[in-house]
C-alpha cells in the first residue's frame, strides 16, 4: 500500500543523503520526495511517498526514527490530511485546440505562466488524481514536456483516525 510519510529533520548538511541512503540501502521505494525549510530555519520537513506492506512501512518509520537527525516521523496515511503536488506542463496545441486548452486550464483552476509562439506553459496544483486527469487531457493536445514536484502533505486540523 502507498503511504505518505512526513519527516521532520534537522536542517543540516547531509541529512537528505542519510534519508535517501536509508531507503536505497534497505531496498525501500521512494515514489516521491520533497524537502523544504519549515518556519524554523533549523528544521526541514520532508514528505516521502513510499509503498510497502504493513511490516515494511513499520520498518521504514522505525528506521527513519532511528536516524539521529530525524526529529519526528508521522505516517499521514493513518490520519486525515491534505496533500498537493504541482506540475508545470508545456503544451504545443494546434491552433484549433487552443481554446479547448485554455478552457480546460480554467476548469482545473490552473494558470498559464508562460507562452511562446507555439506553446503554453501551464501550472496546475492538486492532489494526485487531479494531476493525473489533467495530464491525460493534455496528452492528445500535444505535451512537449512536464515537470512535477513531489507531493507535500499536512494533517487536517480537525481530523479523525481512519
Amino acid at each position: 500500500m502507498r503511504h505518505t510519510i512526513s519527516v521532520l529533520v534537522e536542517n543540516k548538511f547531509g541529512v537528505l543523503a542519510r534519508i535517501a541512503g536509508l531507503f536505497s540501502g534497505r531496498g525501500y521505494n521512494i515514489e516521491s520526495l520533497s524537502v523544504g525549510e519549515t518556519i524554523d530555519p533549523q528544521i526541514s520537513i520532508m514528505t516521502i511517498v513510499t509503498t510497502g506492506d504493513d511490516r515494511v512501512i513499520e520498518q521504514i518509520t522505525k528506521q527513519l526514527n532511528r536516524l539521529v537527525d530525524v526529529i519526528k516521523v508521522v505516517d499521514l496515511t493513518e490520519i486525515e490530511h491534505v496533500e498537493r503536488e504541482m506540475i508545470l506542463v508545456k503544451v504545443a496545441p494546434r491552433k484549433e485546440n487552443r481554446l479547448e486548452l485554455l478552457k480546460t486550464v480554467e476548469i482545473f483552476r490552473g494558470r498559464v505562466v508562460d507562452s511562446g509562439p507555439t506553446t503554453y506553459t501551464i501550472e496546475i496544483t492538486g492532489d494526485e488524481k487531479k494531476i493525473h486527469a489533467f495530464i491525460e487531457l493534455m496528452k492528445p493536445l500535444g505535451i512537449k514536456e512536464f515537470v512535477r514536484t513531489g507531493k507535500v502533505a499536512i494533517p487536517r486540523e480537525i481530523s479523525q483516525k481512519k
Partner: protein
Amino acid sequence: MAKMKGAEILIECLKREGVKHIFGYPGGVVLDIFDLLYDDPDIKLILTRHEQGATHAADGYARVSGKPGVVLVTSGPGATNTVTGIATAYMDSVPLVIFTGQVPTFLIGNDAFQEADIVGITRPCTKYNILVKDVKDLARQVREAFYIATSGRPGPVLIDLPKDVTQGKTEFIWPEKIHIRSYNPTYEGNIYMIKRAAHEISKAKKPVIIAGGGCVISGAHEHLRELAEFTQIPVTNTLMGLGSFPGTHELFLGMLGMHGTYYANMAVQNADLIIAIGMRFDDRVTGKTDAFAPNAKIIHIDIDPTSIRKNVRVDIPIVGDVSRVLQVLNKILKEEIKPQWEEVRKSWLKQIAQWKKEHPLTYEFDPEVIKPQYVVEKIYEITQGEAIITTEVGQNQMWAAQFYKYNKPRRWVSSGGLGTMGYGFPAAIGAQLACPEMTVIDIAGDGSIQMNIQELATAVIYDLPVKVAIINNSYLGMVRQWQELFYNERYSHTYLSTAPDFVKVAEAYGAVGLRATKPSEVEPVIREALSIRKPVFMDFVVDWREKVYPMVPPGAAIDQMIFEEKKKERKLRAVK
C-alpha cells in the same frame, strides 16, 4: 580566555571523556594532532600496522571494557582502511569514536591528494557521522559523538576533521550538558507490556529465553540469571550473547541457530513461549523464518525498536534497556505472580534433559590427528574458563563458541554480525590493552589470521602478550564445508596450502612460535604458550576434514539439523 588550536581542543575533549588509549596511524592531515600526542602524559597512542587493525583493536578494547574505543587515522586511504572495522562495530553495536583527518575545507571536493568522502562512505555503517566545518563546533561535536556512540544502542560514530579545522583557533568551551532534540533513546520499558509479559511467563508451560548481545552490552547478566533461576526457564544464547548467562549453568542450553546445539534448537522449536532479550532474530538464528518457533508466543525486549518485528512476528514488544526492563519484570514476577515454578517446569526440563542426552555437543577424538574441537576444549580446561577469547570467522569461531564455556560477560569477543575475517587478532590486542592482567587468546584459522597478521608487530612492540591458537587446516574451512555439503565437493579456491610457516612468521616478528601436530602435543603447547609473557602463535595442525556440527542447512528450519554420524540426513543438502 586564550584561544586554542583545534588539535588542542580535540585532545582536551578526549581527556575530559576519559580516553586513555587511542589506536591509530599518522598521516599528512593529522600531523597537528599527532604532534600533541608525541609527549602527552595522559593519552597513549597505540600505533598499529594497518588502520583496519587499529579499528578492530579499538573494538576489542571497547567490548571487554565497556568503554568507547577511539581511533585516529589520516584522510583518504587511512580513512577508507577503517571501513571494515567500522562496519564490524556497527553490526555488533560496539561504541567507537573514529577520528579521520580530512583535506582542508577549501580543498574538499577538489579530488585533492588523499581525499576521500569518508562521511559519505561510512554513512550506512555508522550510527552517526559528521564533517566538522568550523573549529568553533569541534568541542560540542566531539562531546555529542561520545554521547551518541555510548548511549541507546551503542555504535560507531565518525568525526571527519579537515586540516584547517585542527589548525584553526578558537576559545575552548566545554559543553557541560548536551541535549540532542532528535535523539532520545528509550530506556524504560512500557509497564503495561512488561505486565503482560509477566502474565505470559506465568502461564507458559514450555518457555525458553533467548539472550543476545544486548544482555552483555546493558550489563543485564545478573538480572537474566535471576529471572531464569527463579522461574526455572532454560536459556539459550545467540553468538553475541555468549557470556551473558553462565555457560556451565544447568539451565543453559548453549548457542542456538545454524550451528547451535540440538537441544537449544529443539527447545526453541517446541516452546510455547520465547522470551527474546537483547537480540535481533538474525537469519543465522532463525533459519527459515516461517518455520521458526511455530507454536510460541514471542516476547521481545530490545532497546532498538527497528529490531522488533523486523524478521519474525512478535506478540509482546518491549522497547527499552534490557537491564532495566528485566529488573521491573523480575519484581513483578516475584511480587505479584507466585506459581510453584519448579513444579510447573518439571516435564519441560525433563524433555530438555532428554534432548541433551540424545545429541550432546560432541566430536570423535582421534589419537593420531588433532581435532580442532579438542584444541578448544583443552584451552578451556587449561584456562579454567577464565580467559578472554577472541575469534576470527568461520569454523574456528563456531568451535570456539561451542566448546569453550563462557561464564562471565565481556569474555567472548567475536565478529557476529558482519563476520569479519581478520577481526580476532587485532581485537585481542585491544582486549589485552584494556585488561592487562587477563589471559587473552585469539582462536584463529589459518586463513583469517593472515588477514591482519601484520599486527603481530603491534603486539610485540607494546608488549601485549596475546596468544593466538591457529586452527590450521590449510583450508578456508567453513567455505570448504559448504562446498563439501552443498556444492558437490568442488573445492573452488578454498585450499590455502601449508604456507606460511606460522612459527617462523612469529619468530620473524620477535614473538614466539609453537607447533603441535599430534593430539599429545596440544596440551604442552598451550601450557608453554601461557607460561610465556610474550605474544605466541600456536600452530595446531588439525584434521582438515573436520566439520562444524550440528548444522542447519541454509533455508531449513532450525530443528532440521545435520549431524556428523547420520550421513543419511545429508539428503537435506537439497534444501536450499
